[in-house]
């Protein structure tokens, strides 16, 4: 049995114009020690997926479906049980290390917090453990840094502090929501290397949410591509690098600055209040035909463990060959 099993996960927001389905039918399984990358444009539902897994959806948003961690259903847990789980078995790091730390507390105290909360560790012992964690995320001079306030650290240092805080209780699953987006490029690589190293060391699973396809390709074992709140493609990284089945993923790859071609996908993500009944990518898709608007395309098997949600997979494969 996989550590994390997500089935038919959906998120619905109540709006004055009726319920909006901002996430629909997301499913995947993640084994211990594996890294899953979730990629997509802004507004594709990446962050919502991460928050739904943590039970941290904003007020007014409801999760549907099933999320099982170690066989335990998370979506039916009450807030109290979730509080005991969060920071202990599942942890999360955020995009903005600038604002994700309390400006008024020394970072050492913030790292020690989950230990005091979940392990009931006495203050002195938790402080010592916090210094050990700071060393573990390769921060120099942990004794001095533990007493520092967030504003005295650089962006990269703060993100390392966030990672140390998330690691404190030795979680089974770490959800990283765009952990490198706010950092500059050299620091990005260091943080990703650190995450990979920690996964290998501890055997935890990592969900890496990012819009940076290259970063995910280098780090993850599998990739889940989201568009307009639905899964369009799900594949092992090696398979994805060889062959992109879905026209959207192809477009996403072509839009990488590294290709030298740098072709943007025309149009923008669909308005969540007026989602088309069929394929949500149809109005931007170069291969769209009338049948695309008929109903949501099913996830079809393309290769081993490689699935894509498109009814024009043959045509997409043909254009991929040609280009």
């Amino acid at each position: 049995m996989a550590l994390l099993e997500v089935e038919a996960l959906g998120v619905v927001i109540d709006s004055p114009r009726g319920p909006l389905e901002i996430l629909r039918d997301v499913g995947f399984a993640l084994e211990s020690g594996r890294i899953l990358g979730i990629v997509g444009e802004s507004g594709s539902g990446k962050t919502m997926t991460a928050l739904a897994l943590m039970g941290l959806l904003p007020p007014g948003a409801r999760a549907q479906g099933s999320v099982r961690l170690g066989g335990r259903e998370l979506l039916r847990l009450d807030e109290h049980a979730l509080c005991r789980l969060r920071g202990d078995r599942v942890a999360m790091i955020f995009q903005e290390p600038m604002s994700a730390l309390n400006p008024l507390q020394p970072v050492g105290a913030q790292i020690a917090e989950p230990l005091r909360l979940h392990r009931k560790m006495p203050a002195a012992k938790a402080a010592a453990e916090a210094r050990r964690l700071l060393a573990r995320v390769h921060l120099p001079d942990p004794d001095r840094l533990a007493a520092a306030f967030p504003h005295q650290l650089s962006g990269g240092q703060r993100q390392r502090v966030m990672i140390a805080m998330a690691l404190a209780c030795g979680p089974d699953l770490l959800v990283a929501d765009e952990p490198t987006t706010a950092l500059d490029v050299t620091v990005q690589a260091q943080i990703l290397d650190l995450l990979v190293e920690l996964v290998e060391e501890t055997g935890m699973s990592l969900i890496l949410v990012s819009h940076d396809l290259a970063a995910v390709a280098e780090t993850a074992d599998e990739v889940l591509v989201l568009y307009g709140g639905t899964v369009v493609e799900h594949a092992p990284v090696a398979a994805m690098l060889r062959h992109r089945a879905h026209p959207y993923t192809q477009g996403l790859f072509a839009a990488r600055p590294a290709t030298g071609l740098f072709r943007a996908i025309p149009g923008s993500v669909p308005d969540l209040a007026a989602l088309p009944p069929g394929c949500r990518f149809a109005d931007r898709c170069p291969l769209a035909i009338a049948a695309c608007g008929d109903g949501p395309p099913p996830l079809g098997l393309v290769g081993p463990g490689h699935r894509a949600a498109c009814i024009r997979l043959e045509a997409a494969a043909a254009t991929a060959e040609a280009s």
Partner: protein
Amino acid sequence: MSAVAERGRPARRRRVFRHWGLVCGAILTALLLLIALVSLVWTPHSATAIDLTQRLLPPSPRHWLGTDHFGRDIASMLMVGAQNSILVGIVAVAIGVALGVSLGLLAAAQGGWAEEAAMRLADFTFAFPAVLSAILITALLGPGAVNSIIAIGIFNVPVFARLTRGAARAIWTRDFILATRAAGKGGLRITLEHVLPNIASILIVQATIQFALAILAEAGLSYIGLGTQPPFPSWGRMLNEAQTFLFLAPRLAIFPGLAIVAAVLGLNLLGDGLRDLLDPRLRRF
């Protein structure tokens, strides 16, 4: 890090002294507190002793600020009156902070119907002008220092409730709150350990300003006879009693008036100065 701290502290000290308003406010407020404290153990004369042979004397070495129409020493009355003003201010602000801040924090943390209920309650309290509600309360409970404190305190509750809710809601949307939730903290602990410390500076500033307003309100209530009752001296009632002798001895009105102005001005300057000092967005000196 230590270099930052070493540079940081003198810089902050310089900022404090460059802000003349803050310095004036601090001095005036300290003076007010000092006078009240001294009056607890010593006044030049008894503040309540009546001596009709010494009526309406001008200032002299014996009576620094003269005497009133009962022969009481004005300076002593002002000193003891300061006690009264400070006591009313502190207790009224404490009531406002205790109830208002809890209500505001609850509203911000819970949202939904709890927030609606708390804020509509605040609106309801706000709808009555302060003096009117004070008159209402003193009419129900009878005049006196304690009842005027309650009246002013109740007026302070919605002020703090609204301020706290607004500031706390802004903190709740910050990423570090989400991060502490992701670390498994419950709402109560997040409120007390993360939200409250981050809005404390705003509350301190508001408390200072409400303190000044409370002193003013107490003087107003005493002036119309609903506040502190004789023989205990109060600045507001001294003003009232001076009215009759305004042409004969205007100093009877001038000295308590100056005392009120100095106290309120001092606290307001202190509050504004603290706001500049504690709010990085307004830091312009």
